[in-house]
C-alpha cells in the first residue's frame, strides 16, 4: 500500500438522481490521521458524499481513490474490506441483537471463516471467537459501555445507540471512519462524551475520521479541517478558522444569493 499520499481522494465526483444533481464535481482529500468535518446546510449533499465513499451510490462522473488506488466502483462490502467503516444518520443497529453481538458483527471481516468448522462451533472457530471477543471487550471498555453489554440494542436510549454504532464501526479496525451526524439528537452531556470518544479514537487508535455534523461548536472544536458543501458543490475547504471567515460559507449559512 502506498503510505505517502492522502488516504482518500475524491476527484470531480458528480452524483445525480434523475434530474437532481446531488453532487456536482466535488473534489476533496482526506489526509491520513486527520479529523475532517463535512458541513453544509440541509440538502447540501453531505450524506450523499458519504454514501458514494462507502459504495452505496456510484458516481455519475469522477473518481475515488483510496490509498492511491482507484476504488470508484466498489460495492459496500468491498469498501468495508478496504478498511472503511461508517455509521448512519438514523442509527442502523441490529435492534434485536445484544450490544455485544452487534459489536461482534463488526468484526466479521476480521474473521477468517470456515463455514463447516464454524457451523460445528469447533476448535479453531471457538478459539477465533474468543480472540475476537477480547478485541471487542477492549472497545467496550474504550467507549465505556460495559453496563449494557447484554442489553438488546433496540432497547437503549438514542445517545447510547449512537455510541454502540460507533463501537461496531470501530470493531472492524478501520483506517477511515465515516460518521454521519454522530451527535444528532444528543443532549449537551452526551455530545461532550461523544466528542471525547471521537478525539480519543483519533488520538489513541490513530484512525482517520470524516464526519458530518450540524453543531458548529462541535465541528470547530474537534476537527482539523472543514469542507463545506452547498447545493452539491464544495464551496470551502480549510482549517476551522479559515472556514469561519469565508464569505461564501457565511452566505450559504445565511441563505444569501442562490438565485
Amino acid at each position, binding site marked *: 500500500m502506498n503510505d505517502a499520499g492522502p488516504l482518500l481522494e475524491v476527484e470531480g465526483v458528480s452524483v445525480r438522481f434523475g434530474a437532481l444533481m446531488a453532487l456536482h464535481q466535488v473534489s476533496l482529500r482526506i489526509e491520513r490521521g486527520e479529523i475532517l468535518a463535512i458541513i453544509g446546510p440541509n440538502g447540501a449533499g453531505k450524506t450523499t458524499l458519504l454514501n458514494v465513499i462507502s459504495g452505496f451510490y456510484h458516481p455519475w462522473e469522477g473518481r475515488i481513490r483510496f490509498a492511491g488506488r482507484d476504488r470508484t466502483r466498489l460495492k459496500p462490502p468491498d469498501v468495508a474490506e478496504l478498511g472503511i467503516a461508517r455509521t448512519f444518520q438514523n442509527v442502523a443497529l441490529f435492534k434485536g441483537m445484544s450490544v455485544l453481538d452487534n459489536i461482534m458483527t463488526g468484526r466479521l471481516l476480521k474473521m477468517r471463516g470456515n463455514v463447516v468448522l464454524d457451523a460445528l462451533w469447533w476448535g479453531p472457530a471457538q478459539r477465533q471467537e474468543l480472540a475476537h*471477543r*477480547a478485541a471487542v*471487550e*477492549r472497545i*467496550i*471498555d*474504550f467507549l*465505556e459501555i*460495559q*453496563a449494557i*453489554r447484554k442489553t438488546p440494542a433496540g432497547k437503549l436510549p438514542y445517545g447510547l445507540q449512537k455510541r454502540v454504532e460507533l463501537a461496531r464501526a470501530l470493531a472492524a479496525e478501520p483506517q477511515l471512519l465515516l460518521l454521519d451526524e454522530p451527535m444528532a439528537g444528543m443532549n449537551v452531556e452526551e455530545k461532550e462524551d461523544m466528542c*471525547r470518544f471521537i478525539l*480519543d479514537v483519533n*488520538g*489513541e487508535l490513530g484512525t482517520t475520521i470524516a464526519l458530518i455534523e450540524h453543531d458548529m461548536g462541535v465541528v470547530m472544536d474537534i476537527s482539523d479541517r472543514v469542507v463545506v458543501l452547498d447545493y452539491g458543490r464544495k464551496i470551502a475547504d480549510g482549517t476551522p478558522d479559515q472556514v469561519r471567515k469565508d464569505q461564501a460559507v457565511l452566505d450559504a449559512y445565511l441563505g444569501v444569493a442562490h438565485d
Partner: protein
Amino acid sequence: MTTIEAGLDTFPKLVRSNAERRPHKIAIREKDLGIWQAYTWRQYFERARRIALGLAALGFARGDKAAIIGDNRPELYWAVAATQALGGVPVPLYQDSIEKELAYIVDHAEARFAVVEDQEQVDKLLHIRAQCPRLESIVYDDSRGMRAYSDPCLISLAELEERGDKLAVGQPGYFDAELARGSADDVAIICYTSGTTGSPKGTMLTHRNMIVMGRNAIEREGLRHDEEVLAYLPMAWVGDHIFSYAQSVLTGFTVNCPESAATVLHDLKEIGPTYFFAPPRIWENLLTNVMIRVEDAARPKRALVHFFLGVAQALERARLHGRTPSAWRRLLHPLGQALVYGPLRDNLGMRRIRVAYTAGEAIGPEIFVFFRSLGINVKQLYGMTESSALVAIQPNGDVRLDTVGTPLPGVEIRISEQGEVLYRSPGVFVGYFKNTEATRQTLEDGWVRSGDAGFIDAAGHLKIIDRARDVSRLAGGTIFAPKYLENKLKFSPYVKEAVCLGQDRPFVTALVNIDLAAVGNWAERRGIAYTSYTDLSQRAEVYDLIEHEVRRVNASLLDDDVLKGARIRKFLILHKELDPDDEEITRTRKVRRGFIAQKYAALIEALYGDGDRVQVQAQVTYEDGRTGTVRADVKIRDVALRATAAGEASL
C-alpha cells in the same frame, strides 16, 4: 489469631503475613474487559511493595500524606497499603468531588503525593495545583488519554513501579526496614468528613483503632477468610476502608471491584457476595428495581409474587415484634421459598449473603422488612468515621425494626444529661488533623459525642431518636423529638406537613397540614362536599381522619419507654398550606420552626389553652402575587380527652 503484640501491628505487615500464610488465596478481583481478573495475596503484597518503592524513589518520607482518588480499584487499595508501609498516611477522597472540595482537602492534608485512577482526576488535580503548593507528584493508573500530557509531575503507575524496582536493586533492604519501623499507634488513614457546617474535618485513625475494632466486629459477626465482598462504595468513606480493606486484610477474605459504577447491580449478581453493606438509598433502589420487574411480569406471576411477598412480610413483622406468626403462613413459607423468595434473592445477587448491613441513616421499615422477609440477613449498623465505622450492630437473631442493635465488644455507651449518645471504644479516633478545637469539642476523656440523641432500651439495644440538636425536653423533663414525631405523622398519605411543639411545655401538640390531593380524594369517595382547602381542612370528618393518624403515631410510641411520655395530646389542622412563598417552609420543604412559632403564636397558645376553637386571620399570597386576608375558625382536637370519653384504654 495473630495479635498486635506478635508484631503484626500495621496493615501492610498484615498484608505481608497474608502473602506468606495464604499466598494463593484470592485477595482482590476486578472486572476488566468483561472478565474478573483475580490477584492473590502474594500479588497484592508484591504490587504494594513495588508501589511503595516507587513512591520512595520519588522522595516519599515518613509521615507524608498521599491523596488517593478514584473508583474502587485494586491498584488504589495497593497504593493505600504502600503508603502505610512507608509510614505515610493515605487520604482517600471522593472521586466525584468538585475542584473546590478537592483543593481544600489536598491542601489541608498537606499531601505531597496523589495516586489517582485516570485522566479525569489528573485534570482536576492539575487545575487546582496552584492552591496546593505542597503537591509534588501525581501517579495515575489508567493511561488512556494521557499521551498528550507532558507535565513533569505526572507519572504512570507502571513507570512508578519500574522506578521502584530500580530502587530495590540499589537498596535491597529498604522496603523491609521501612515496613518494620511502622507501629500500631501510627496514623493509618485520614478520612475527611464534610459536616453540615464548616469545612471538612480530617478524622485520624490509627492502625490499632482499626485492627482492634475491625477484629472485634469480625469475631462478633463470625466473619471468615472465605467471605466475598463487593467494593463499590467510595473509598473515601470510612465504611469502605473498614469492610473492603481493614477487615479483608485481617481475615484474608476477597474483595471484588465492579467494572464501573453503572455495572454494580450486574456485578453484584455475578459475584454473589456473602458479606454486603449498603446505605438505605441503595436498598431502596434495589427494592424499586425488583418491584418494577415484578410489575412488568405477566399477571398470574405478578399475583403469585405479591401473595408470597405478603406472606413473608407478615411473618417477618411478627418475628421482629416477637410474636408467633400464624400457622398457615408458616406452612406457606417453604412454598414461597421455592417459588418466589429463592429466585428473587438469586436475581438480586443475594443468595449467598450471610451478613448484610444498612447504615448511615434510618432505613424505611418497609424496605428493611422486605429484604429480611426474603431471608436476607440485613441488619442495622451504627457507627461513624470517628468510631472506625463501628459502634453497634444488631446481633444475629435479635434484630428489631427501631433499634441499631447492641454495642460491639469493647464499646461502652452512655447517654449524656441532654440525651446525647456518647461512646468510648478501642476504635475511637485520635483527633481531627490540624483541628484541635473540633477535637476538643468532640472527644473528651476518650468519650466521643456522637451528635445523636438516643437511649438504651430495656433489652440493651441502642435506639437513635434524632440528631441531638433537634431534641429537647417537655416541661416535665420528658425527652421530646419533634422531627421523629413529624416524620411518623408524615408517613400517612393524608398528612403533608406537620409541626410538633412541646419544648418547655406540659405536653406535645401538633400543627397539621393535610394533603389536599389525598384528603380531597378521600372526601369525594365518601361524598363529603367542600369548597376550598380551608373548608376541607375544618370538616369534622377530616379531623376524625387525622385523629386516627395521630393515634396511630401515639400507639407506636407506646413500646418506647423513653418516648411514650411525648405523645401528641392536642392537634389542629392549619387552615392554609404551609408555603415557601409565605416563608413558612424552605424551597426544599424544610419547616421553618422559628418563623412558624412566631406567625402562629395565637394558634399555639390556643392549643395550650382550654378552648376548642380559635379564630385566625392570616395574610396569604395568591398565585398572581396579590395578598389577601383569610379569616377562619380553626378547631382544636384534644386526643387524650376524647380517648377518655370514648373509654379507650390505649391512651
